[in-house]
C-alpha cells in the first residue's frame, strides 16, 4: 500500500492524472514529475482527478500553481475534478476555485475540453 500514487490515462487530446493517497511535501515531487512529463510531451489539456486523494497540504497546492502558467501559455488548461469535501475545502480556503475550474465528475471536465475544441 503506497502512500501516494499517480495513474495516467490519455483520452484523445486530454491527459487525465488520477492521484491517490496523501499529497504532502513528501509526495509532491512524484506528482510534479508526472505533470512535467506531460508538459514535455506537449500535452497541455490536463485533468487531475482527485477521486482517491485523501489529503493535500500546501506543498501539493504548490504543484498546481507551478505548472498552470506554462499550460495556459500553450493554450491548454488544467482542470480539477472529483475532490472529496475534505480535500476541496483546502483548495477553497486559499481561493483556488477562482483560478482553476473544478468539476464534480470527470465527464464534465472532459466535455468542457471538447466543447472548447469545437468553438
Amino acid at each position, binding site marked *: 500500500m503506497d*502512500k501516494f500514487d499517480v495513474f495516467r490515462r490519455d483520452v484523445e487530446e486530454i491527459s487525465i492524472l488520477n492521484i491517490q493517497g*496523501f499529497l504532502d*511535501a513528501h509526495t509532491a515531487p512524484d506528482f510534479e514529475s508526472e505533470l512535467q512529463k506531460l508538459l514535455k510531451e506537449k500535452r497541455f489539456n490536463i485533468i487531475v482527478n482527485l477521486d482517491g486523494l485523501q489529503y493535500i497540504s500546501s506543498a501539493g497546492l*504548490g504543484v498546481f*500553481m507551478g505548472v498552470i502558467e506554462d499550460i495556459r501559455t500553450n493554450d491548454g488548461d488544467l482542470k480539477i475534478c472529483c475532490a472529496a469535501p475534505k480535500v476541496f475545502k483546502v483548495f477553497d*480556503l*486559499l481561493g483556488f476555485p477562482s483560478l482553476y475550474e473544478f468539476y464534480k465528475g470527470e465527464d464534465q471536465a472532459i466535455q468542457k475540453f471538447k466543447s472548447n475544441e469545437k468553438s
Partner: protein
Amino acid sequence: MERRVNKMTDKKKRGSKHYHLKLPIDTANLEIIREFIARIAQNMGFTGEEINRIELAVDEASTNVIKHAYKTEDKNSNFIDIEVKTFPDRLEIYVIDRGKGFDPAKIKTPEMDAYFKKMRRGGLGLYLIKTLMDKVDYSIKPGVRNKVKMVKYIS
C-alpha cells in the same frame, strides 16, 4: 455526548497533559506527525472537521522546519520537535527547531488575488496555519530555539 462530557471532567481533574514527539528532519516523517496530532485531538473530543484542520496546520509548520530551518548538510544531525499540551478547553501545539529562524513579521500574508496573478508557488503555509488555528505565536531564537505555537479551542 455523554461520553465526551465524561472525558472532559476526567481531564479537568488531572490538569494538563504533555506529549512530545522528536523525529529526524525528513518529509517521510510528516505522516507520523499527522497521525500523532490527529489521535491526540481525537482523544480530546475534537470533531473530524476540526481534526483535519489541526492536522494540516501541524503538517505546514513541520514542513517548514524540514524545508527551511537547516542547511542540507546539517539536516542529518538535527531534529524536529513537536510538543503538545492538552487542557480541558484547548489543545496547544509547539513545533520547534534549532535552525536559522526567520522573522514572521517580514513574511507577508499572500493577497490571494495578486498571488494567483503572479502564479507563484509556495508561501501558503504560514497563511494556512493562521487560518486554520485559533491562535498562533512565534518565538524565534535563531540557532537556539524557534517555536511556532498553535492553539485550538474545543468548541
